[in-house]
């Protein structure tokens, strides 16, 4: 077993054990963080590994969230099929976005993804009759039940989040070691060279974006079922910025970076709201500090300083 795999397993084991030590408040927080980390890992696959800076990932998260929520509340699906629907929604929307947006690059790509996400948010508001718009809706407790397990109660919820996170993390690790993962990195590092090695830039970037959408949709779907609330706020720009922030903080292009970033940022905001209501400031300042002084993030810095084996 390689060092990297051992490290990842250790993290998962630690998270598993943590639930027996954590007070209930942190219990729920960590569950939430793990789901958000899956979202961030998806973002990392597009941004950290392939170099696609999207400002519209909230669209994929919201697609999963709403497909699942509406599936349960509007179309009477049970949790299982609804979650699957959410996953597929994430993939489909990411594919559609990619086919159009990947005809552009750089700044234009950022703006196009931003615009698509904004249109998505506005569409949710427009169809407020079904989606309840900004107010959102609650998923009934009874429906948040997978195979007899009540996912709204603490312990099963934590397990579910952990399983989702574990699968996402290990798949991510496998991806970075695979030929596809290497070609995604190649696209980021030197697109022209990659073209001249026979790699189709469009196809690779689209694949990365679709995988990213899969993760984001899964996270959105899970978030709905586990925490029971679907609202338009999850489709706003804020939810496109958060995964970027988590990834930048934890380390873009590292597998554990997104989780670390999500964990730290969540608690940074949580702790600072004990002292001040100025948590927007914390987010803004964090972004500035990171981009000015630490663009590689924590694990990126660690990797540079000698831990070259860190994936």
């Amino acid at each position: 077993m390689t060092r990297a795999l051992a490290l990842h397993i250790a993290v998962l084991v630690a998270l598993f054990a943590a639930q027996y030590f954590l007070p209930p408040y942190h219990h729920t927080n960590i569950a939430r963080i793990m789901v958000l980390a899956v979202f961030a890992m998806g973002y990392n696959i597009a941004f950290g590994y392939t170099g696609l800076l999207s400002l519209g990932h909230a669209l994929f998260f919201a697609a999963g969230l709403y497909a699942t929520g509406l599936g349960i509340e509007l179309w009477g699906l049970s949790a299982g099929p609804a979650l699957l629907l959410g996953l597929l929604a994430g993939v489909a929307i990411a594919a559609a976005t990619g086919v159009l947006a990947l005809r552009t690059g750089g700044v234009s790509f950022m703006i196009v993804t931003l615009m698509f996400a904004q249109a998505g948010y506005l569409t949710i508001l427009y169809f407020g009759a079904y989606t309840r718009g900004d107010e959102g809706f609650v998923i009934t407790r009874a429906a948040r039940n997978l195979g007899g397990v009540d996912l709204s109660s603490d312990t099963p919820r934590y397990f579910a989040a952990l399983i989702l996170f574990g699968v996402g993390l290990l798949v991510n690790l496998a991806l970075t070691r695979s030929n596809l993962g290497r070609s995604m990195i190649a696209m980021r590092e030197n697109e022209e060279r990659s073209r001249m090695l026979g790699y189709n830039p469009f196809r690779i970037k689209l694949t990365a974006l679709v995988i990213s959408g899969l993760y984001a949709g899964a996270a959105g779907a899970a978030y709905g079922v586990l925490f029971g609330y679907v609202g338009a706020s999850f489709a706003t720009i804020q939810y496109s910025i958060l995964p970027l922030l988590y990834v930048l903080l934890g380390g873009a292009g590292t597998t554990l970076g997104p989780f670390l970033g999500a964990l730290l940022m969540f608690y940074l905001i949580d702790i600072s709201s004990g002292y001040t209501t100025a948590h927007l400031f914390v987010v803004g300042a964090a972004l500035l500090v990171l981009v000015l002084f630490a663009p590689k993030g924590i694990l990126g810095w660690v990797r540079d300083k000698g831990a070259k084996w860190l994936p």
Partner: protein
Amino acid sequence: MDFGPFLLLALMEGMVMAAVLALTAVGLSLVFGVMRVVNVAHGEFFMLGAVIAWFVTHYMPGPPAVGFAAALVICPLIVGGIAALSDTLILKRLKYDPEATIVATIGLSYIFQQAALTFYGPDARPVLAPFDLRIQLPWFGYSGYKIAVVFAALAILMAVWVLITRTRAGLIMRATQLDRNTARAFGINVDRVYAAVFALGAGLAAVAAVLIVPIQQAHYLMGHDPLLLSFIVVIIGGLGSLRGTLVAALVIGLSDGVISVFFSPTLAKILATLLVAMVLVFRPQGLFGAKP
């Protein structure tokens, strides 16, 4: 009211929108044209202009017109100053790398929003118009102030056009836009030009906000819509083309006004956002820009 007059009302509302949008968008366009950076905090410069205008008019003694006139001068200066500082302390240090700049300006926008929330509060507060004049048309009465806004915006845009095409400062800006390195070789202090352009762009947004705030009310989140709309205008008009920006502002302001009056404003926004995405995908040079 019959359809005809209703349409006229919608168009007049659209003109006011277009006027303010043109000012804001020109600010964004200048920054992109000369500096090649996308400023996501542009909407917050707009918002700060409105919020500071409230403070100025609130604390300035005398009739509303005096406070308003003061705001028209003070707000662009303060907001321009903040912008210049942001450029010198942050953007310059990032060497204007496109992606890093966007992330940094996102961070700045959060900070500005927070500042407004902390010092101004979460409420929307009105600012009194400098004068109260009702123009009576055959079919409806219309606010004289709104008409004045359109003329004021035109005057300012004229002044900007003169600045860019007829003055030495404008020449320096255009030279820097064409080729940063050659400009430097000719002794132009590019850093200072960038700070000035960034300040000018922010100042224009602030002025637009001051003009609109008697109509709209000042609120710490009011920067979002202008940001999005300016983006739409600048991209459709063609990044870096001033003429394109003006034409697009007119078209979008008018159609947004009309669609909002006859249909839902949300639908208008959805169409506008999708339109700008499609333009970027299929015709990235917009209407007047150069093919990239």
